[in-house]
């Protein structure tokens, strides 16, 4: 897949040590996103995978400042937006958008499709009422709906069509960056490909960047330039999509890939399923050391004490002590 970086090489979005915790009863903190650092280039798709509850949605929402970040930095197009007030965020809202998981819940049931798609332009005072109406007409066509759908209500549409309405609403602001939070997981399998194709085409035509959240690694590999794997709020592996999919390094990524159904029987690697023992620990009570240590087939003593950094290894970043510079030094000797 082509990598469309800008000349300057500055990524569109960069987050550094981003942390979001929720206060829960008993004065505890639930770390939904824990010191995550990553980048999304212009025109690029970063796929985020991980089991349900690992903090994918929380990360997407924190990036869009639906949740206030507790630590770390969000830099969008060279500007630190971490501390921007809701009002100062407004110009960025035009550029950073979101597509939601549940097409039933993400559209206001009392507004017509036309009103739903027009609302973002009204909020940002874009154009005249007439030009907005024209834009709605145009967007309806872009996402593959019909002009007479404009006066209808969301409940009259199927899941896939509603997701198209949501996409049209998002495009009304002509954003550069969209967080897609599992946009197809609530849809019929037969409809999923249509929506994916639509998102890919829009990206090609408009040079958009996506943070694409999903739990299906196969599909994420298909549409992403880069992949980030999350576990218990931590980013555990991050790098080129193809590299990670074909040669996963983190034991958790390896387990995820071995568990996904094989699409390519001629795959060079001999597929044997890695069965993970135990349950995902509660994010309220994470194990000391590496978050994956309790279930890792390669666990060593030090894993239960030291929280691994993201180490550079084999052209990607991996948070596993096997790949720490020290461990690599030992192997080299």
């Amino acid at each position, binding site marked *: 897949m082509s990598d469309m970086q800008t000349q300057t090489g500055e990524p569109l979005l960069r987050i550094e040590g981003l942390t979001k915790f929720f206060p829960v009863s008993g004065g505890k903190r639930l770390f939904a996103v824990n010191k995550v650092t990553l980048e999304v280039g212009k025109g690029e798709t970063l796929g985020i995978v991980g089991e349900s509850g690992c903090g994918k949605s929380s990360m997407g929402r924190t990036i869009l400042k639906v949740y206030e970040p507790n630590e770390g930095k969000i830099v969008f197009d060279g500007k630190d937006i971490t501390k921007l007030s809701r009002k100062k965020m407004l110009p960025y809202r035009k550029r950073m958008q979101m597509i*939601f998981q549940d097409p039933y819940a*993400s559209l206001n049931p009392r507004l017509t499709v036309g009103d739903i798609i027009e609302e973002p332009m009204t909020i940002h005072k874009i154009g005249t009422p007439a030009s907005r109406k024209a834009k709605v007409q145009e967007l309806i066509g872009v996402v593959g709906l019909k002009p007479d759908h404009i006066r209808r209500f969301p409940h009259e549409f199927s899941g896939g069509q509603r997701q198209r309405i949501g996409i049209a609403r998002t495009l009304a602001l002509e954003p550069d960056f969209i967080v897609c939070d599992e946009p197809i997981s609530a849809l019929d399998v037969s409809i999923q490909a249509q929506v994916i194709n639509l998102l890919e085409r829009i990206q090609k035509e408009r040079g958009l960047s996506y943070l694409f959240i999903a739990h299906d690694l196969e599909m994420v590999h298909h549409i992403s330039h880069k992949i980030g794997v999350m576990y218990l709020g931590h980013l555990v592996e991050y790098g080129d999509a193809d590299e990670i999919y074909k040669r996963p390094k983190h034991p958790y990524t390896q387990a995820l890939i071995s568990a996904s159904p094989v699409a390519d029987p001629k795959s060079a690697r001999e597929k044997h399923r890695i069965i993970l023992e135990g349950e995902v620990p509660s994010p309220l009570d994470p194990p000391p050391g590496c978050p994956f240590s309790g279930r890792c087939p390669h666990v060593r003593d030090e894993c239960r004490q030291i929280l691994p950094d993201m180490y550079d290894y084999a052209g990607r970043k991996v948070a596993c002590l096997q790949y720490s510079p020290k461990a690599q030094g030992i192997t080299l000797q």
Partner: protein
Amino acid sequence: MTETELTRKLLPEEKNDEFIAIESETFLQAAWRKFRGNKRALIGMVVLIFVVLAALFGPFLCPFSYETQLPEKNAPMSLLHFFGTDKFGRDIFVRILYGARISLSVGFVAAIINLIFGTLYGGIAGYVGGKLDILMMRLVDIIYSVPPTLYVVLIMLMFGPSVTSVMIGISISSWMGMAQIVRSNVMSLKEQEFTMAAFVLGAGDSRILIKHLLVNTMGPIIVTVTLMVPQAIFTEAWLSFLGVGISAPMASWGTLAQDARSLIEVYPMQTVFPMLAICITIFAFNFVGEGLGTALDPKQKH
């Protein structure tokens, strides 16, 4: 964006081949269809229309005013005096028509004040949440703890006995139910994804609250307002019957019943007629409110 994009054909693999399963029907059309199917609600509505029209235009068609004292006192029912006359020789039917104006306006004014104040209060408490919500709801509990009659009496002492005082008193003591209903609806709606979508799009608080949260609470709000009217009519009638409400020569239905009470053993019908008017109107409003409740509830399909 260019024309080509507008007219561009979709690639075959991204065409949407899903069908629209439900025929087009707006929220209000669906509600009206369900409401029509409810006989009691329909009867209630017809009765209400009749009562309102009678209150508005009835007095113009009558030969006497509510004050006119005729020589014939305590007359029985006749073609000239449908419900007879009272101890001062005033036509009871005419007085009930005028009374309808007072009783209904007390009901409607209280309901409208409730609608505006209760909705805003509950909406803000539910939307902002946290400490403000706790504080606002504590205040509601305090207002609840005082009996409604007391508010009316206090207002009357301050501003003198008048229809306005009764309206203010009843309004002050009755908006809390609306506030609580709106608050709980807003609290659950604000957790829905469409609220987050509006936030991410950059919508301000008042837009989110009004266009997204309150619009979706329309059903419960309409039902509560409808049920508020008979409740206010009843409170007013009850107060007037106790002698704390509206006083002569103006007369609400409650006052009429009260006036006739001294003669109840001799001329019971003089008390029965205004009471019937109260009962019929209150039942009609409740039937309509109940019908609206089912019609506006999205969970009830048919």
